[in-house]
């Protein structure tokens, strides 16, 4: 069945008792067992270990990614953490995209490094740099493509090949494009990670995360972490996310079309120094983007001439676009990564990977394209 059908129906079957067309919100901690001998016969014991509403979302995301299992988490960060804990241990080494989300960088350098895990931050947009970073003890390669906020893309197939040779797990953070546009398993990856907070929910209503595995072995490892660390998703969040997923493709198509128009508008604007959007011919990895994904998404960044000062002026004056963290929602958002999402990354490291001071990141929402462009145009006039 097609994606649009599956995003609505996968994982959800009418409640056998009442026929309720939507999965009920099982806001319950525990499950009454029929007898000692039949312990677990109905599949659930305690909502940290599993919950029927969360399970419905897990089944849906498994289906959409084309994997074998999914484990949902309280946030996207706990999904990243679970992936690292599932495949790394003291003495092991991980290669992490040097342009990964600031929170991933912080988790690696400030927390997991304390437990004897070694990291190399590699330019994963260059597969050769990944190959060069592989060591005997490399157990995990974590990429994020397109990356936040630089939009740099990693070649999923090439890196999956490197991982396979190294005996390492290749986990791809697929948050920016979602399985609607990009399916990492078809390109050889082992794990797909999501902040479901973004396009899956799509309405700024929840924070959540998911790890989808493409093998039983990996799924078991992730499930073990989900249950033993308890960084789980709540049934209410799962239910809202189930609703959001039903319009995923429709939102992605509309928001991406607007992003393309906005990128073209900005590229032609005299006050804009540069624009990065994978759909633009001028984008360095336009060819790779077109090859490994069927759409370009709704994230882009640009630099206003005049650097940081001009960028701040634009963001302080703009209407309609909200100055807010998060991305992927129907509301259009504008952010300044250097002071907001990536403030924890040291300046030298930011400059090295291309998060320049004047970089303005935008998450294109579902408003009318002409209104979004007009608001940008008016704000640029004031710079």
């Amino acid at each position, binding site marked *: 069945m097609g994606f649009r059908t599956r995003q609505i129906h996968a994982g959800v079957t*009418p409640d056998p008792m*009442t*026929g*309720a067309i939507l999965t009920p*919100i099982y806001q*319950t901690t525990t499950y009454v067992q029929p007898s000692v001998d039949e312990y677990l016969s109905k599949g*659930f014991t305690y909502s940290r270990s599993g919950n029927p509403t969360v399970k419905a979302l897990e089944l849906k995301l498994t289906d959409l990614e084309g994997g074998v299992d999914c484990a949902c988490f309280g946030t996207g960060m706990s999904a990243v953490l679970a992936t690292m804990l599932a495949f790394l241990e003291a003495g092991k080494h991980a290669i992490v995209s040097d342009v990964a989300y600031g929170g991933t960088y912080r988790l690696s350098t400030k927390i997991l490094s304390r437990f004897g895990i070694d990291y190399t931050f590699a330019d994963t947009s260059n597969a050769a740099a990944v190959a060069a970073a592989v060591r005997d003890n490399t157990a995990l390669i974590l990429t994020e493509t397109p990356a936040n906020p630089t939009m740099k893309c990693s070649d999923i197939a090439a890196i999956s090949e490197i991982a396979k040779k190294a005996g390492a797990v290749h986990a791809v953070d697929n948050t920016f494009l979602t399985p609607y546009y990009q399916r990492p398993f078809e390109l050889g990856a082992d794990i797909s990670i999501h902040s479901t907070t973004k396009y899956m929910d799509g309405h700024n209503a929840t924070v959540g995360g998911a790890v989808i595995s493409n093998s039983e072995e990996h799924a078991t490892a992730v499930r073990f972490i989900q249950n033993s660390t308890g960084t789980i998703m709540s049934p209410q969040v799962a239910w809202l996310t189930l609703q959001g997923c039903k319009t995923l493709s429709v939102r992605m198509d509309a928001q991406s079309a607007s992003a393309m128009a906005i990128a073209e508008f900005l590229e032609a604007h005299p006050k804009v120094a540069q624009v990065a959007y994978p759909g633009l011919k001028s984008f360095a990895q336009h060819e790779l983007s077109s090859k490994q994904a069927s759409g370009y998404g709704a994230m882009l960044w640009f630099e206003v001439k005049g650097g940081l000062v001009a960028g701040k002026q634009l963001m302080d004056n703009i209407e309609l676009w909200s100055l807010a963290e998060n991305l992927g929602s129907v509301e259009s958002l504008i952010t300044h990564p250097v002071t907001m999402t990536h403030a924890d990354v040291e300046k030298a490291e930011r400059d090295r990977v291309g998060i320049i001071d004047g970089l303005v990141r935008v998450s294109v929402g579902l408003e009318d394209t002409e209104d979004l462009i007009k608001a940008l145009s008016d704000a640029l006039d004031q710079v």
Partner: protein
Amino acid sequence: MSRFLNFDTLSLHAGQVVDPEFGARATPIYQTTSYVFPDTDTASSIFNLERGGHAYSRITNPTVGVLEQRIAALEGGSAAVCTASGMAATFCAITAILGQGDHIVASTQMYGGNISLMKNTLPRFGITTTFVDPTDTDGFRAAIQDNTKLIYGELIGNPGLDILDLEAIARIGADSQVPVMIDATFNTPYLCRCFDYGANVTVHSVTKWMGGHGTAIGGAVVDGGNFDWGATDKFPTITEPYAPFSGINLWEEFGPSAFATRIRAEAMRDIGPSMSPMNAFLLLQGIETLSLRMDKHLSNTMILLDYLSSHEQVSWVNHPSLPAHSSHELAKKYLPKGAGSIISFGVKGGRAAGKAFIENVELASHLANVGDAKTLVIHPATTTHSRIDADALVAAGITEDMVRLSVGLEDVADIKADFENGFRAAKRISKG
């Protein structure tokens, strides 16, 4: 489970069958609009009221259904219908049996919304009301007309706190073959089960003590199952064939729950003031601790009654537990655990002093609700009862210096300390 019938047990278990699919201990939240039918025969029998089952969440919903059964069990009724608000419950209950040309005898001391419904809204549809002082039991009998089809009152009047002599009123109802409908919001079934004293229907704003946490608006109508609708021809909506459901006779088919079924079949279907499943879930959580909360509400109330009665800035204190209250004996009879946690009192210095008190308390919230876990205060003359005219204000027992207090569950020492600030401010104002 039917072996366990005591109040606290019912407040935790009644109405809930443990989810057979997964065994979920808590009631699932069926946040769904509709239900997939296994086959067309089942579908048509659900639509015809031939069998129970869910079709569409405006009519029934499994989560709301658990709450309905729980409230009916606590109240000792035959069935309950939950609604989007307490006012919707009152409206649906009245219009289930009354129509153009019919008449209500009602208490003067009721929530302003109830008074407005009967005084302003129902007359537009040909339903008139005679209002009677709740302490004048004979007045209820005298007000009965040939076309009277309902006696309506609040067991604990709002805001005068006069108690209805329920047994006497029920006798008048029985003698006149007219059902007695009681708004039991202020007492809840924990303090008084009105059907035990002959009431026929109760309505509730479950927003208040039943829910208890100020999180969800909701109402309930409970059918006492104890009124003989077929004894006269006064109630054709219950006893005559109902055309929309193939001429079904609700009285013959449903007997003791015919009245509740009429609300389900008509009001929920044609008017649609349904309770949301999420609200039902929140309200179920609240009811689990109903008796614990009520006991604490009542003990705090008694302590504050002592405190207010001896306070130099207080001109009068009104609560049925006080021996001086005209309903004190009735309170002891119908509400032996305590006569609710609403206190009204006057602040010396009149309107300005009352206003200063309310503006200078900090812990007690100034808002238009009662029965929250948090202590609430309000000035009825300018808020809840502001839409009724001066005469009705007097009739309802409201004075300009009146503060209505809904006693919460805070540490009572903190409530007193908070009130001291309010009284100091009131004193400054009244000294000019």
